[in-house]
C-alpha cells in the first residue's frame, strides 16, 4: 500500500471527458451487438465455448471419443490402475473408466439442461405474473417462493427424493431422471422468479410500457412483446451458470444414493460407486470427478463471460 499508484486507484476520475465520446458512439447500437463485441474479445469466452462444444459432442456422439463399450466388464481387471491399454484404468466392475466418463456426459448434461429449462419456465412465468399483476397474486407467489427458499437446497432434495425414490428402490431410468429434474426445478424456481420479477417491475414503469398500455395493448402482448425481452439478459446469465450447478447437484444427489442410479451411466454414479474405494482405486473416482468439475467449470465460465459482457462496469 506504499506505492503512489494505489492512491490513484482510490480516486474516482474525471468521468465525462473519458467516457462521453465512447458512450455517444455506442449509444445507437443494441445491447446484444454490444455484448457480442465485448464477448469476442474475451479469451475466457472462447475457452469456455470450445469446452462446451467438446462436451456437447461427447453427449451427442460418445463413440467419437472412445471405441470401448462402457458396459463391457472384465471382473479380472477390477480397479486396475491406468495403463497404455486403458488411460484412466478400470472401475470396480472392471469396466473402462474413460469410456464410462465419456458416456456419462450425456446424462449429466441432459439433466442439467432440462432442469434449468424447467426452472426457467416455472420461475420466469411466476415471476412475470407476480410482477405484472402485482397485488395479491404477487404476495402469494412471493410467499410461496420464500417457503421453498426456506428449504436449503440439499436438504429439500434429500427430503423429496428420499421419499419419492428412496435409496434402496429401483425406479426405471427415465422415471428417475424425470424425478431428479422436477426436484431440481421445484427447489430452484424461486430464485429465477425473483430475477424475472424484479426485471419486469423495473421495466413496467418505463415510459414505453406505460405508453403501450395507454394505447390499449393487452396484458399478453405487453408481457411477451415488452416485458419478457427485458428480463432475458439476467435470466440468460443466471441459467447458464445454473446448468453448471445443476450438473453438480445431480452428482451430489447420486452420491447420496437418492439421485440417478445404475444402470444409468453418469459421473455422479461413478463417483458414488467408488467413494468407498478411494484408498485403493482413486482413479475410478477422480477421473469422473474431473470430467464433472470441468463440465461445471465450462458453464460457470460461459455464464460469467456473458455477464461481464452484459455488465462491463465491474471489470
Amino acid at each position: 500500500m506504499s506505492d503512489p499508484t494505489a492512491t490513484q486507484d482510490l480516486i474516482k476520475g474525471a468521468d465525462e471527458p473519458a467516457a462521453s465520446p465512447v458512450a455517444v458512439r455506442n449509444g445507437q447500437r443494441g445491447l446484444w451487438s454490444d455484448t457480442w463485441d465485448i464477448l469476442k474479445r474475451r479469451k475466457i469466452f472462447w475457452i469456455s465455448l470450445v469446452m462446451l462444444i467438446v462436451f456437447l459432442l461427447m453427449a451427442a456422439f460418445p463413440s467419437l471419443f472412445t471405441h470401448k463399450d462402457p458396459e463391457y466388464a472384465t471382473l479380472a481387471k477390477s480397479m486396475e490402475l491406468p495403463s497404455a491399454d486403458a488411460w484412466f484404468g478400470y472401475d470396480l466392475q472392471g469396466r473402462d473408466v474413460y469410456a464410462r466418463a465419456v458416456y456419462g456426459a450425456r446424462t449429466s448434461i441432459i439433466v442439467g439442461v432440462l432442469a434449468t429449462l424447467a426452472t426457467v419456465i416455472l420461475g420466469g412465468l411466476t415471476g412475470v405474473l407476480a410482477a405484472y399483476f402485482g397485488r395479491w397474486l404477487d404476495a402469494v407467489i412471493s410467499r410461496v417462493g420464500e417457503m421453498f427458499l426456506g428449504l436449503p437446497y440439499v436438504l429439500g432434495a434429500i427430503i423429496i427424493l428420499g421419499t419419492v425414490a428412496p435409496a434402496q428402490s429401483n425406479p426405471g431410468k427415465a422415471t428417475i431422471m424425470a424425478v431428479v429434474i422436477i426436484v431440481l426445478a421445484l427447489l430452484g424456481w424461486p430464485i429465477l422468479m425473483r430475477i424475472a420479477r424484479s426485471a419486469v417491475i423495473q421495466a413496467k414503469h418505463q415510459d414505453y410500457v406505460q405508453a403501450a398500455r395507454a394505447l390499449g395493448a393487452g396484458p399478453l402482448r405487453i408481457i411477451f412483446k415488452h416485458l419478457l425481452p427485458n428480463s432475458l439478459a439476467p435470466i440468460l446469465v443466471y441459467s447458464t451458470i445454473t446448468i453448471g450447478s445443476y450438473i453438480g447437484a445431480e452428482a451430489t444427489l447420486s452420491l447420496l444414493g437418492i439421485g440417478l442410479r445404475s444402470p444409468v451411466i453418469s459421473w455422479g454414479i461413478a463417483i458414488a460407486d467408488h467413494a468407498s474405494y478411494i484408498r485403493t482405486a482413486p482413479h475410478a473416482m477422480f477421473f469422473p470427478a474431473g470430467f464433472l468439475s470441468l463440465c461445471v467449470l465450462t458453464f460457470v465460465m460461459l455464464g460469467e463471460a456473458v455477464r461481464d459482457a452484459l455488465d462491463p462496469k465491474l471489470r
Partner: protein
Amino acid sequence: MTEVLSEQMGSGSHAGALLEVDNLHVEFRTRAGVAKAVNGVTYSVDAGETLAVLGESGSGKSVTAQTIMGILDMPPGKIAGGEIRFRGVDLLKLPEDQRRKIRGEGISMVFQDALSALNPVFPVGWQIAEMFRMHRGTSRGEAKKKAIELMDRVRIPAAKERVNDFPHQFSGGMRQRIMIAMAIALDPEILIADEPTTALDVTVQAQIMGLLAELQRDSNMGLILITHDLGVVADVADKIAVMYGGRIVENAPVYDLYKNPAHPYSKGLLESIPRVDHKGHELYAIKGLPPNLLEMPTGCAFHPRCPYRRDNCVTDAPPLYTISGTRGSACHYWREVIDDGEH
C-alpha cells in the same frame, strides 16, 4: 502546516501568486484513443481572491481542479506536462506523503453532490472531526467540540443536537454546508468549490454562495469557483477564466467580461442567460455540440460553432492574445468581438 512544509515553502518568499497553474496538460487514455482533457491551462489565485472557472461539462475545468488536489484517477488520467505551484513549490514534483499533508491543510475542496461525497455510514460530526484528529492529532472529544463550532459557523441550526446525525438525515443545502465545514476545518489557504450549488434549489444556491463568499472574506482564502453558470458568479468572483475544449479561451476581471466579452464563446454564454430586459426576445443558444475530446477540431477548437469563423480559424490555433494587463482572449478576431459589444 507541518514543519516539513513550512520549511520548504516559507510563505511570501516566492514571486508569483499563492497558487499558479502553469501550462497544464492532462490526457485520458481510453480504449477509443487519447482524450486531451486539459491542453495548456494557465491561471492563478492569490489570497483573498476569487477566481471563477467557467465552462461546459467536458471543458476540462473539473479535471484541472482534480489535478490541483491530486485526486485525479491515474490511470486512465495522465499529467502530460506543466506545473502547479503552491507558494512557489511545484506540487506535481512533491512525493505523495507531502502532497497528502497539503490536502485539507493548504488546499481543500467542496464537491458538487454532498450526498454522495459524504460517507453514508459515519455521522457528519465524526467526518468533520476526522480532519482535526488525523491532521492535528486532536483528541476525539476536543475534535467533536470543534466540529460543532464549525457546524455553527456554517449556520447549521441546532448543531449540537445534529452532530451525530448521518448525511442522509440532512437536506441538500444543509449537507452542502457540512461539506463546506469539513473543507474549511483546517483553515486552508485555497478552497476549490466544484459546482457547489448545481445540485441545489435556486433559493438555497444563493445562500450557499453567500456563505462561501463570507467565509472567504473572513479568512482571506483564495477561492476557485468552478461552475457552468455565469449567473452564479457575478456577485462573488473577482476574475473569470472561461474554458473550452480543455483550454482557457478568455480570462478577465469579472466586470470587464460581463460588460464586454472578448471571445465569441463567452459572448455566447452571456447571451444565453435569460434576462428581464430582454423579455419577448428569443433566448439565445450556442449552436452545435461541445467538441469530441478524442477528435478535437483543427485550429481553434470553437470554430465549428463560431459565428466569427474565417479560414485561418480552421488551420491556426489562436494563442491567448493579451488585450490588457489582466485580460486575454484566444480568438484571432477578439477586436471584432469587443467592437460588436460596444454599441
